[in-house]
């Protein structure tokens, strides 16, 4: 199989314009004849479904929550980037492009990233027109802040609820199309498989999460916008229902999975407090602007924070990175926290935590100023931990947060299955080996509002006037049978362990051995451990109830079954990539100072894995990456 990224020729600034002109169009009367399935109603899926509906296509949109408005995009706090240069501080499309390629540690596709930076400005226009109440300055114009270590202020925000407000904008646009009859919305409906007929994606099979009904849906094209797979780690900042089932099933049907080992662990989350913990809560990265991170200098020091004198504290980020200090990028901050905890300096439950201390900032700026900036975050922290961060330093620890890996897509956002498009966090596209803060919201909306609606027309125009197929086609029936068979198999195991207990254990393996720092030996061990646990899963799982009812354990069980397979691929990919880049840190490949050491000669490529069947080794395909505009350099934050 040859991977063709279909990147248009010509200078990078002109590629997208030229490509849009070259794409074939579907005339308005014909759009009505096409049926498009969009799975997911987050920023990516919601914006795509609404825009396609506006264009005149027939759209069916699915989500697993009870309403499209609850997709996990809603939880994003910090903001969304756009190259508006409203602050006159030297920002530009080129700079956003440059920062994103560099931030991704030179493992993303330049042409995609440039387009993302280009359309970022349209996103803000669109959202404002929809009524998104972004923060404003006194003159009434839009406010910005600098975020995630960027040197310019290009982040637009709505209090600490940017994701919520953007998603509600999308949901409103979607609701308008539902009312107009252009989009049919199917909440509480989970996609459990993809149907591929004659090499083309022709529909999906779903389970009605209230009645248990298994059903087929036919379409001319299928769009997956199902989000990321951080929940493979069990504990993450993702919502409990986030899952990889849609993309994993598509992978098994022929879509290559790209860079599965590129997963981001966010440095500022509230640490785990007990073994019953169900998820981890993110504390906005902006806290690092004023908080100072430290641990006791003496390993095993159990004194309370206020009993530890200044001289016996180690401000390890300030010590190791004098230039950037507490503001080093996410991957570096996370890894450093793990290192000091591994060395026995960690604080709190299980020694897995570091202090984020506001005492100096409060003394310098006053409590009121800190309250004005971070009041709601401090409140949230106190609600969860019962501690007052104005008087006791916060405790934080890194947590799985975002997955750069995902299904491989070309410049048109089409996977290796004809007619299967993948957008938002579910694809692998724009962030390389590390995503910058406030860039995921931008990518989801770019894909859904401004890229997919153009590129999908080109594909559909080539299938005009073909005989429609029906859900009675044998191709659908056989997938339905497989789906039902899998559910029955899960329900009939009748073992002794709950889904959560097994998922938790899988998460431990992944975080320990394929998390912030990885080694060949550890990853090989992980693959063995995962396989053993997976065997136990299929022999010792206990589910109560039937398929024909609302059955939340059954929902989880299907998702976790897929996580087992994905976890193994993640480890394989991490073994194969014998370099350190972005969030992927292999201990064998580091500089003498302990920083990530890339190997551009051998690994300037996307690793795209092909599924070869149960028990078979997956096959690796490589898409070489070229950097014509941003020459690779070593990141340095010293």
């Amino acid at each position: 199989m040859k991977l063709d990224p279909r990147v248009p020729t010509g200078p990078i600034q002109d590629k997208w314009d030229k490509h849009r002109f070259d794409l074939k169009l579907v005339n308005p009367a014909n759009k009505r004849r096409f049926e498009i399935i969009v799975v997911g109603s987050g920023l990516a899926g919601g914006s795509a479904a609404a825009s396609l509906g506006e264009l005149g296509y027939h759209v069916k949109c699915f989500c697993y929550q009870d309403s499209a408005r609850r997709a996990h995009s809603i939880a994003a706090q910090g903001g969304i980037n756009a190259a508006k240069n409203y602050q006159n501080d030297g920002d530009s499309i080129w700079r956003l492009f440059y920062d994103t390629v560099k931030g991704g540690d030179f493992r993303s596709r330049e042409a995609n990233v440039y387009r993302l930076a280009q359309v970022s400005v349209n996103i803000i226009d669109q959202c404002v027109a929809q009524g998104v109440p972004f923060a404003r300055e006194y003159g009434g114009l839009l406010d910005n802040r600098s975020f995630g270590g960027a040197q310019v202020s290009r982040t637009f925000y709505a209090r600490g609820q940017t994701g919520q407000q953007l998603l509600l904008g999308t949901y409103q646009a979607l609701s308008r199309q539902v009312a107009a009859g252009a989009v049919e919305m199917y909440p509480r409906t989970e996609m459990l498989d993809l149907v591929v007929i004659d090499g083309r994606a022709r529909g999906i099979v779903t389970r009605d999460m209230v009645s248990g009904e298994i059903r087929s849906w036919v379409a001319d094209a299928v769009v997956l916008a199902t989000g990321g797979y951080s929940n493979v780690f069990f504990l993450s900042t993702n919502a409990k229902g986030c899952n990889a089932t849609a993309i994993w099933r598509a992978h098994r049907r022929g879509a290559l999975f790209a860079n599965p080992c590129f997963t981001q662990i966010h440095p500022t989350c509230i640490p785990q407090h007990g073994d019953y913990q169900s998820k981890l809560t993110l504390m906005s990265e902006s806290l690092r602007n004023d908080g100072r991170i430290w641990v006791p200098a003496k390993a095993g020091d159990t004194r309370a924070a206020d009993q530890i004198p200044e001289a016996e504290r180690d401000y390890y980020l300030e010590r190791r990175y004098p230039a950037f200090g507490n503001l080093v990028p996410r991957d570096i901050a996370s890894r450093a926290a793990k290192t000091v905890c591994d060395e026995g300096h960690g604080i709190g439950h299980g020694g897995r935590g570091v202090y984020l201390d506001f005492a100096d900032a409060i003394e310098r700026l006053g409590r009121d100023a800190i309250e004005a900036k971070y009041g709601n975050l401090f409140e949230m922290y106190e609600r969860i931990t019962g501690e007052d961060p104005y008087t006791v330093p916060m405790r934080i620890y890194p947590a799985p947060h975002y997955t750069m890996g995902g299904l491989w897509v070309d410049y048109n956002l089409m996977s290796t299955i004809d007619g299967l498009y993948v957008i938002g966090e579910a694809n692998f596209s724009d962030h390389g080996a590390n995503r910058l803060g406030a860039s995921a919201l931008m990518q989801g909306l770019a894909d859904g509002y401004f890229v997919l609606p153009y590129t999908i027309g080109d594909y559909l125009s080539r299938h005009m006037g073909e005989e429609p197929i029906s859900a009675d086609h044998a191709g659908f029936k056989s997938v339905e049978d497989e789906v039902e068979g899998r559910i029955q198999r899960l329900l009939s195991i009748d073992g002794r362990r709950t889904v959560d207990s097994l998922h938790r254990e899988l998460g431990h393996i992944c975080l320990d051995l394929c998390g912030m720092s990885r080694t060949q030996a550890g990853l090989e061990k992980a693959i063995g451990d995962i396989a053993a646990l997976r065997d136990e899963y299929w022999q010792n799982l206990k589910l109560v109830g039937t398929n024909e009812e609302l059955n939340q354990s059954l929902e989880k069980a299907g998702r976790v079954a897929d996580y087992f397979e994905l976890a193994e691929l993640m480890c394989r990919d991490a073994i194969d990539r014998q370099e350190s880049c972005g969030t992927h840190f292999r201990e064998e490949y580091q500089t003498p100072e302990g920083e990530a050491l890339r190997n551009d000669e051998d690994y300037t490529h996307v690793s795209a894995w092909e599924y070869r069947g149960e028990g078979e080794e997956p096959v690796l395909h490589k898409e070489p990456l070229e950097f014509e505009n941003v020459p690779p350099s070593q990141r340095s934050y010293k």
Partner: protein
Amino acid sequence: MRLTLHIWRQRSSRERGRFETYRLDEASPDMSFLEMLDVLNEQLTERGEDPVAFEHDCREGICGSCGLMINGKAHGPEKGTATCQLHMRKFRDGDAIRIEPWRAKAFPVLKDLVVDRTPFDKIIQAGGFISVNTGSAPEANLVPVPRNTAERAMDAAECIGCGACVAQCPNGAAQLFTAAKVSHLALLPQGQPERWQRVQKMVEEMESYFGSCTNFAECEAACPKEISIEFIARMNRDFLKSQFRGS
């Protein structure tokens, strides 16, 4: 912590429900309320009993999925806090806790503590949007919006659509939810062209599902985002004005 839990169990919307009593000895003050239910569910599953179905997703107080009547209060005893953000340290060792689904005619129970809130989506579909197609938006800074106006719009826009307002209201009214969306859009310059027709359509749709508001103001007290009932007055004014303006 040792707890006695009285939980509403109902197999489906077609069957009748009842309270069941469970003992839980393994709760800890640091647990969230939903984690406490997770622990119960693990035990039930191990015993071969059907775990309690309850809605949840983000567990960060923002998606609006969760929502339980806890001792007769929507989202429980802590002000401005969704169920998923409520922690067991707000309860005492030995407490008995009564846990029920949202009770409202418009929100039928699907199973145990899970209800159907589809009418909320219908209200938004009736007009809770600004009609602007993708690509047709003008430059974002063309229309300045006074900071206070944007902040006020944001106060309303924070609604998470959980339904606590309806559940707490003795009439099962959805005024606070509807008013939050009406006001969010009516406050902004971008929302003006459709302002009068929007409020009419949304209120009409609301009335076809929900009871009437008689100013108990219990909704405001139950709202996890503490959305003010001033928005209801605002919506009522707009609704009245819209009658004179035609559509």
